[in-house]
């Protein structure tokens, strides 16, 4: 990096703005993908006219539309909490991007406690949801917020436990270390080393559990009861309009991208592709990572438009009775296998 003779604060702000802009761009692309794929699954066309062919500017137009809507704060609402809630939720999802490695030496901050930080920060969005539900002054929002809170707290545990097994297998909590562990060859055929991403080398149960848990963390079908349109209008987001609503909207898709990024890094190998050297990965890494993110996002969208939603007591049963024992078994098996081999 060329060292500029500028104060550190200015440099930091610039980096932050670039990161936010990039993230916004990726989120808009993901929104467009969801609109288009869901339309084709349903035999319709989706965005078409905005911006020329294929309506690529549709999410941008939607963002502009939200900006010019009336800014409502209901009389009954708790003013300060109401205004703060969307930003808390968004902050929780954006802050996870700090530790995701994009290339072998390109990462915002390579923390030693990468996974720990990731999980801690992503639970901030739970707080944001509860704040939104409580402060809206509306019975529907309250029910939606409490449901969401219960769901998010219940599914934190399988998320954490699945990642614990990964940490055990990789031997480190730092995300760059985990990607490096996936890049090291497991066994050799002849003279070539075969290295497998963790999903193929023993973490398949963890992968499935993590996908289910992240769907629940993101409030997406089949776990989108808090925002079940057909029951509670919009759940905890009912009273929001304009810019704040778009924050929630963006927060949902940013969360999707961040969860997909975590899954890609931890289970699918992140920026690493077999056969490519480290220097090549400095340039190709981001594209590999983005490709894997889009694949996981495609899975999320596919699941959303195929399956209905399950009731929250069935949801809680799924978490406590099935996912947590599975992940505990996963940890024990991983640890045993690690010691044995």
């Amino acid at each position: 990096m060329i060292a500029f003779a500028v104060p550190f604060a200015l440099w930091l702000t610039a980096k932050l703005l670039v990161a936010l802009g990039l993230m916004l761009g990726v989120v808009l692309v993901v929104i467009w993908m969801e609109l288009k794929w869901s339309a084709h699954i349903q035999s319709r066309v989706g965005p078409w006219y905005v911006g020329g062919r294929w309506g690529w500017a549709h999410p941008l137009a939607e963002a502009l539309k939200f900006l010019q809507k009336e800014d409502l704060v209901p009389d009954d609402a708790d003013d300060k909490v109401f205004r703060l809630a969307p930003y808390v939720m968004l902050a929780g999802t954006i802050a996870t991007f700090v530790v995701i490695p994009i290339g072998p030496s390109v990462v915002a901050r390579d923390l030693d406690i990468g996974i720990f930080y990731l999980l801690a920060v992503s639970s901030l969005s739970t707080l944001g949801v509860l704040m939104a539900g409580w402060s809206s002054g509306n019975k529907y929002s309250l029910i939606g917020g409490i449901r969401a809170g219960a769901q998010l707290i219940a599914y934190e545990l399988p998320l954490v436990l699945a990642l614990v097994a990964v940490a055990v297998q990789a031997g480190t909590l730092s995300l760059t270390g985990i990607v490096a562990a996936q890049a090291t060859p497991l066994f050799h055929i002849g003279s070539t080393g075969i290295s497998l991403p963790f999903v193929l080398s023993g973490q398949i149960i963890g992968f499935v559990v993590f996908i289910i848990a992240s769907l629940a963390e993101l409030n997406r079908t089949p776990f989108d009861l808090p925002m079940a349109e057909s029951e509670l209008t919009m759940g905890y987001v009912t009273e929001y309009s304009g810019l704040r609503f778009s924050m929630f909207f963006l927060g949902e898709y940013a969360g999707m991208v961040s969860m997909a990024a975590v899954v890609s890094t931890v289970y699918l190998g992140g920026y690493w592709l077999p056969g490519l050297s480290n220097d090549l990965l400095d340039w190709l890494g981001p594209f590999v990572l983005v490709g894997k993110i889009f694949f996981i996002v495609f899975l999320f969208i596919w699941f959303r438009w195929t399956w209905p939603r399950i009731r929250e007591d069935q949801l809680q049963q799924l978490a406590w009775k099935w996912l947590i024992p599975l992940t505990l078994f996963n940890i024990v098996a991983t640890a045993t296998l690690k010691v044995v081999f």
Partner: protein
Amino acid sequence: MTQLDGRGIVEVSDGGVSVELKGETMTLNIGPQHPSTHGVLRLVAEVDGERIAKLEPAIGYMHRGKEKLAEVRTYAQITALINRIDWVSGFANEVAFIRAVEQLMGVEPAPRAQMIRLILTELTRISNHLVFASSYPLELGAFTPLMWAFREREHIMDVIESATGGRFHPNFNRVGGVKPAAGGGKTQKKVSLDLPAGFYAAVENAMDRAELACDELDDLVTGNEMIQMRAKGVGIISYDDVIAYGISGPNARASGVPTDLRKLETGLLPYEGIDFDVITRENGDAFDRYLVRILEIRESIKIVRQAIGSVPDGPLQAKVPRVLKVPPGSIYVRAENPKGEMGYYIVSQGGRIPYRVKIRSASFSNISILSKVAVGQLIPDLVATMGSLDFVLGDVDR
């Protein structure tokens, strides 16, 4: 023992202190503006957390006064109005009314018209059940079946439009048969409104597509474990409740009551020559009601295929005077609307305008069970139950 100002009881004894708090229920208004209540239905629910303690439907938001309007309209004009009662199944609303008037007048309808009426009624039955089969998963959260079923429904709508001119409100029945011609004049040509060329081929095509939709829905919805988790065991209506509350149609058949007015009310439409089964199920929960309707689509497809092959030739309408005067008398005729039993009680005092028309609509009785079945359920279960009853507010409020 002390009272906590009406909110609970505190007991202090040597063994310790025990506090019992009395919870309060929250009154929640579900509707009238709500995405999943099929229209403007208001449910005043008292919920305890998420469990419903008491439920009361408040209807009347869509009352259009059809019975009052019928007191100042001639019979042909009333036919145009009652198409709109159950707006999803347009043609089926007219059948019972017209048959009632024909029976009062002693007119025997033309056989060709009877067969055409049968084909159109079954087509609207398929169309109605397709709407149900797609909007019910929508309430449970699956967004895709809606689009697929409506895509197949377009073919049926096109068929009905090519024959009658209207997709939802055909207004095709006339006393003595179906609408024979536009213009009944003594001058100029009469443009006959018989079945257009290509009708049978179009109906065959529509039936093939409807069968395809059934197969797709079977794979996507009926076999889906999550739908089964949400709908099995939910909203169980017992056999006795069906009889006590007057529930009819597929809702009754799903609880084991084998009433199908197509087989019971002989003489309305020529169902005797057609071979079909009455579908019943035992459990009476939401999943059974859903399953009964999906299987009924297949039965209706069978009926239509048999009917197309056996439409007799002949005039489209029996001889009736131009100015229709119905002799005095009263009659009640009921028919199998896709949603249940729809009946018309007509009181005539001679003349062109009836004295009173009373409409017995299926959905009005069907939703009366809600206040019994919903107690103790969770709110998502309430939505699943409501959706499975398949009511439409136009039918409830008329």
